[in-house]
């Protein structure tokens, strides 16, 4: 990339399952206003810097409204600036930001807005399930049940057998992901599903597609989030503390069926030959990526790490937000992005490294994951999700996580009760973070890296 790109500000709306008396534009305006507040500007002042707009909104068939981008753009009062819609499924938020970054990196734009939203509350649940399942192949997959969770459940079955060796303990580790993320959501006033639950609660929740149960699955949400990226000059006009940002992207076939066996590509912290005995250590693991891994995530991380000089995510990063669409896919992605080698993803949870405070040692977790509450605990308003993750990683590096999550007035405004045991999840001294945005059954993945500009790993 030619020009360094800076993240100047971010913002989010409240997230919820349904907003029967709030139009989508009201949520988008909430998010952009929050971004203005964050750099102590009025929305009008912030808007005066924006040159190009990228809108992330995936499922326009839910809203029966094409060109919804034009509606939001108008209501944000951003005409006549150029704008375009971005819609690669669950990776829509990350991809909208990917586009904004490229506009600035290329020198085309000095300030670009990436703003995403989704609303899935305007269809009956059964029809909503059908509309979501339309993201599978129309001829070869969707007619078999019109339900999406199944595509992840077959992965869970396979992964549990091969890498989890069919152990009950692996099932419990999957459940721990949900316990962790619902628990962190309790500290987040924006979150839709804060819950103090146990592994047993997860394992005994209603079955969606065996072995995945309701509490293994992400939320269906409504809401909006945004971020503004700039060149260096503009970024420092907006704020004294912009962050650096990069995004790598990858893809793989829409149908998992079409994924041919291949050699495992290696990120910088893995060695040639280290998987030669994978099939011996884990019988059945002789096919890559098969039903256990996401090539798109590995490729996105590979590019992102190489762009930014990251050698080992566990050593070089302080915070990650992963796309925990399902407990199983969260564990799969630990391996894809190199936090753990293939086959050993469960250890990231079991070691306590993935927690804000390691439950085994009481010390700070090595690489805390999804302190926002993630897609399981906070929201999956698809087009906004990747932008929410980037915002949440940013809050830690800005050292302003408390300011966003603590204020009793915000809890009150959102009509949510602040827990009496509310605790700060600010990762102390966070300088670098990663956010993964993931679509389909791994059809598109983006890997966003955020860094404090004084703590880069590689010279421009």
């Amino acid at each position, binding site marked *: 990339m030619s020009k360094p790109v800076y993240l100047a500000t971010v913002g989010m709306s409240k997230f919820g399952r349904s907003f*029967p*008396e709030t139009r989508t534009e009201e949520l988008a305006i909430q998010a952009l206003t929050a971004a203005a507040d964050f750099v102590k500007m009025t929305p009008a002042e912030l808007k005066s810097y924006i040159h190009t707009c990228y809108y992330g909104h995936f499922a326009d068939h839910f809203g*029966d409204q094409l060109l919804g981008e034009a509606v939001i753009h108008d209501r944000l009062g951003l005409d006549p600036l150029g704008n375009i819609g971005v819609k690669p499924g669950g990776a829509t938020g990350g991809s909208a930001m990917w586009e904004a970054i490229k506009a600035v990196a290329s020198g085309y734009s000095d300030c670009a807005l990436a703003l995403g939203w989704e609303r899935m509350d305007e269809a*009956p649940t*059964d*029809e*909503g*399930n*059908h*509309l*979501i*399942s339309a993201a599978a*192949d*129309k*001829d*070869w*997959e969707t*007619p*078999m*049940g*019109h*339900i999406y*969770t*199944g595509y992840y*459940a*077959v*992965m*869970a*079955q*396979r992964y549990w*057998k091969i890498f989890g060796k069919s152990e009950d303990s692996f099932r419990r580790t999957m459940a721990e992901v949900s316990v962790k993320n619902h628990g962190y959501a309790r500290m987040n006033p924006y979150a839709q599903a804060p819950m103090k639950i146990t592994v047993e609660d997860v394992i005994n929740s209603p*079955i*969606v*597609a*065996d072995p995945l149960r309701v509490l293994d699955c992400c939320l269906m949400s409504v809401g909006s989030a945004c971020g503004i990226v700039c060149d260096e000059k503009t970024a420092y006009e907006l704020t004294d503390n912009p962050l650096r940002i990069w995004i790598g992207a990858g893809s793989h076939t829409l*149908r*998992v*069926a*079409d*994924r*041919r*066996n291949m050699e495992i590509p290696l990120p910088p912290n893995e060695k040639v030959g280290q998987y030669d005995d994978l099939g011996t250590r884990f019988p*059945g693991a002789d096919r890559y990526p098969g*039903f256990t891994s996401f090539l798109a995530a590995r490729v996105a991380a590979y590019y992102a790490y190489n762009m930014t000089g990251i050698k080992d995510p566990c050593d070089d990063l302080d915070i990650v937000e992963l796309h925990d669409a399902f407990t199983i896919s969260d564990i799969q992605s630990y391996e894809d992005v190199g936090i753990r080698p293939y086959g050993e993803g469960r250890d990231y949870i079991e070691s306590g490294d993935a927690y804000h405070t390691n439950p085994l040692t009481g010390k700070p977790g090595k690489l805390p994951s999804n302190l926002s509450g993630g897609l399981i605990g906070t929201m999956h308003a698809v087009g906004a999700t990747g932008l929410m993750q980037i915002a949440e990683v940013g809050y830690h590096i800005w050292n302003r996580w408390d300011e966003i999550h603590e204020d009793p007035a915000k809890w009150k405004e959102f009509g949510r009760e602040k827990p009496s045991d509310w605790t700060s999840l600010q990762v102390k001294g966070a300088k670098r973070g990663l956010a993964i945005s993931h679509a389909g059954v791994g059809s598109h993945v983006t890997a966003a890296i955020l860094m404090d500009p004084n703590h880069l790993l590689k010279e421009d």
Partner: protein
Amino acid sequence: MVKAEEDIGKVVIKDGRYKISGKFSIPEANQPIFNEDTGKLAGITNPRDMTYIHTYGGEAIFFESLAKGKLMASRCDNEKCEFKGTIHEPFRIYCPDCLRKATPIDITEKARKTAKVHSFIITARAGAFNSLKLPIKFINIEFEGVSTILMGYLSFGEPEMGLRVVPIFNTKNPTYTIVDLSWVPEGTAESELPEGFTF
């Protein structure tokens, strides 16, 4: 709403164009949404009766063959392709590597002799418009000599990884969709097959 036979929307191609008959797009009035607690108007329903018209293009042979009890796949026969000889199931019209037209091949026998369950799930839930009986037993099927793993559903017995399965086809009352292809464990008796299906 169930339509009378003469009202069912149908489409044929004549002189290279779609010709439609029957009743489409039946209007249903919008209904207001009131907040019962405040008595105020909040929104509106937008009912739609929609029918999509969709071409199978070069994949039509696959779906038509199911009704004849045949499982078609495709193979790249391009001498210059790095991946010549690769068999794809799902069927692909073009080889994804060289983008030359692939050759449709009949893999029914290969499926009968080598199909195995790679992974599976049983789901008690489905979305609107689902036509299969619940619970649905999804299976992912691997075949010897085929590069990919087909998704399908098991119509009899219980799925497990490695289970040998054989294809069955809805030849008696075909829907011309992927659900005309189903699978049963090897050795299943003809009498156990669902209505309309044959080996």
